[in-house]
């Protein structure tokens, strides 16, 4: 059973977290009855805050749960997360400043706002909004799985641990819903800093203390299985395409776009993006925990008490608990817990913006400003609880697989958004067909790769070796979007010359 010191420190820090969340309302005050004030922090966040806010999108349960869990179970393949984050910032540096500039000029809040304006197509804009909302949902669910993992480890051995865990999650979400309702993005940005301070302290302590106590990294790699030292030759195409596909997808997620648009100036956006690879150092340390844990007998013994499939998600919290002092574990575990909570808030806000502005407002164009903000706040609350209900009803391992599917879906809006920003040759109808074809082929390949059973793999076996499905489906989408646009363009020219 875990010492009550852990829980005491955890709860005290959580109270500080709540205080910060509500205080956000008064911080850099603006009229929160305006959508851009509530959801973009008044577009006034400087280099440091955007750094933390977009960092909050990266340092999510994806880094605490999905990646270490993958390294623990499958080895080096899951270290792709490190080059992926490096590449994603190159993509962002090139693609996003233009979106920021146009949004400031024309008042866009979502990617769908831009697409509607650029291609004068309601259909395409609505489809992009729906894709965003759907792809974001499993991402929120993953955050909750991470929070659940912390509670599972912390409460192990206590009576009614599962029930207490679920009630605690529910309480945490009610509090989160209350402060995002009143503070908007400001609350999220402020709590993001708090969370990042705790997480950075944790990863630095772990990377120094654990290797010393186990006698060097070498021992961990000896204790782990064979394919942990380097990447097996046959997985190189998988590794490279996972990097590419994930890097292209990250900045298309609605919550990442929220982070970008909240920057105060385009130059501040560039600087914070340039510095963001430093965040990846923490991610690398967390990923290594998936190997380090093999050399910590206490943690391995604890993990062996759980079914094999669900051990991975518990790796980080149990490694912390069994290698660091109790009071410190309390700090670290809270860092991970709110590390799921803060991104969940930002993601639900981004979904709510899409639903209100790009779906409801399309159907009911005479929506007043007041109703718009009210519906946005309310739906952000609803989305959080939908994700919570999802986690309570399906096994945790499922949430991780669905998040992989989310990446395959969201990358399909790339032609309309990134190429829409930077090229002139695309037309709306080929983009619509390409989007549908990309999504349909992506889902079909995922089903084939998993033999129509439970989703565990997002790699498709080809003649070149296993390839990340998102990349193949995107290639199909791009071919249709550009090919179709070129045909339409040629036809238009022919008609013109015919008339002459």
């Amino acid at each position, binding site marked *: 059973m875990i010492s009550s010191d852990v829980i005491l420190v955890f709860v005290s820090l959580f109270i500080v977290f709540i205080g910060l969340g509500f205080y956000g309302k008064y911080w850099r005050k603006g009229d929160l009855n305006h959508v851009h004030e509530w959801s973009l922090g008044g577009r006034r966040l400087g280099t440091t805050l955007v750094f933390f806010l977009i960092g909050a999108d990266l340092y999510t349960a994806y880094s605490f749960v999905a990646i270490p869990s993958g390294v623990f179970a499958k080895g080096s393949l899951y270290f792709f997360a490190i080059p992926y984050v490096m590449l994603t910032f190159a993509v962002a540096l090139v693609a996003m400043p233009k979106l920021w500039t146009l949004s400031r000029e024309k008042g866009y809040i979502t990617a769908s706002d831009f697409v509607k304006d650029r291609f004068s197509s309601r259909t395409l804009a609505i489809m992009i909004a729906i894709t965003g909302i759907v792809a974001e949902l499993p991402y929120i669910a993953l955050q909750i799985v991470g929070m659940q993992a912390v509670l599972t480890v912390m409460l192990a051995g206590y009576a009614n641990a599962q029930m207490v865990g679920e009630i605690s999650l529910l309480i945490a979400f009610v509090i989160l819903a209350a402060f995002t309702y009143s503070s908007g993005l400001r609350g999220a940005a402020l709590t993001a800093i708090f969370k990042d301070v705790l997480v950075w302290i944790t990863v630095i302590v772990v990377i120094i203390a654990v290797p010393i106590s186990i006698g060097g990294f070498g021992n961990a790699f000896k204790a782990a299985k064979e394919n942990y*030292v*380097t990447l097996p030759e046959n997985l190189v195409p998988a590794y490279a395409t996972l*990097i590419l596909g994930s890097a292209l997808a990250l900045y298309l997620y609605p919550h990442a776009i929220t982070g970008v648009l909240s920057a105060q100036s385009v130059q501040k956006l560039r600087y914070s993006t340039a510095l963001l690879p430093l965040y990846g150092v923490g991610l690398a340390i967390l990923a290594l925990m998936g190997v380090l844990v093999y050399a910590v007998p206490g943690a391995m013994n604890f993990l062996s008490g759980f079914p094999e499939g669900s051990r991975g998600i518990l790796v980080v919290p149990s490694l912390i608990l069994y290698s660091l002092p109790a009071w410190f574990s309390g700090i670290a575990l809270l860092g991970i817990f709110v590390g799921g909570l803060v991104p969940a808030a930002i993601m639900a806000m981004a979904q709510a913006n899409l639903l209100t502005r790009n779906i409801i407002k399309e159907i009911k164009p005479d929506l007043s400003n007041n109703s718009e903000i009210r519906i946005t706040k309310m739906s952000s609350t609803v989305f959080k609880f939908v994700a919570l209900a999802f986690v309570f009803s399906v096994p945790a391992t499922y949430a991780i697989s669905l998040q992989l599917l989310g990446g395959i879906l969201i990358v399909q809006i790339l032609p309309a958004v990134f190429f829409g920003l930077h090229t002139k040759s695309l037309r709306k109808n080929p983009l619509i067909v390409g989007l549908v074809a990309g999504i349909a082929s992506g889902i079909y390949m995922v089903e084939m790769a998993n033999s129509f059973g439970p989703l565990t793999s997002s790699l498709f076996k080809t003649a070149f070796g296993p390839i990340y499905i998102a990349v193949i489906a995107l290639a199909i989408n791009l071919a249709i979007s550009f090919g179709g646009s070129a045909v339409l363009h040629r036809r238009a020219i022919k008609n013109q010359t015919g008339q002459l």
Partner: protein
Amino acid sequence: MHSSIKYVVLALLVLIPSFVNLGVPIYNRDSPELFGLPFFYWFQTFWLFACTGFYFAYAKLVENKA
């Protein structure tokens, strides 16, 4: 700096790190080790700092252009 040279430099500042990141065989080896960490792991972690340098130079150069 001449403007066309500037564009080439800007492109390289983004393309060089990307080429290394996607060129998996470049870093897929076990030695030399660092503190018992295989090359594969420490190189990619180290490369994060190098990327930050490339990207920061990119941001700086774009700013001077404007």
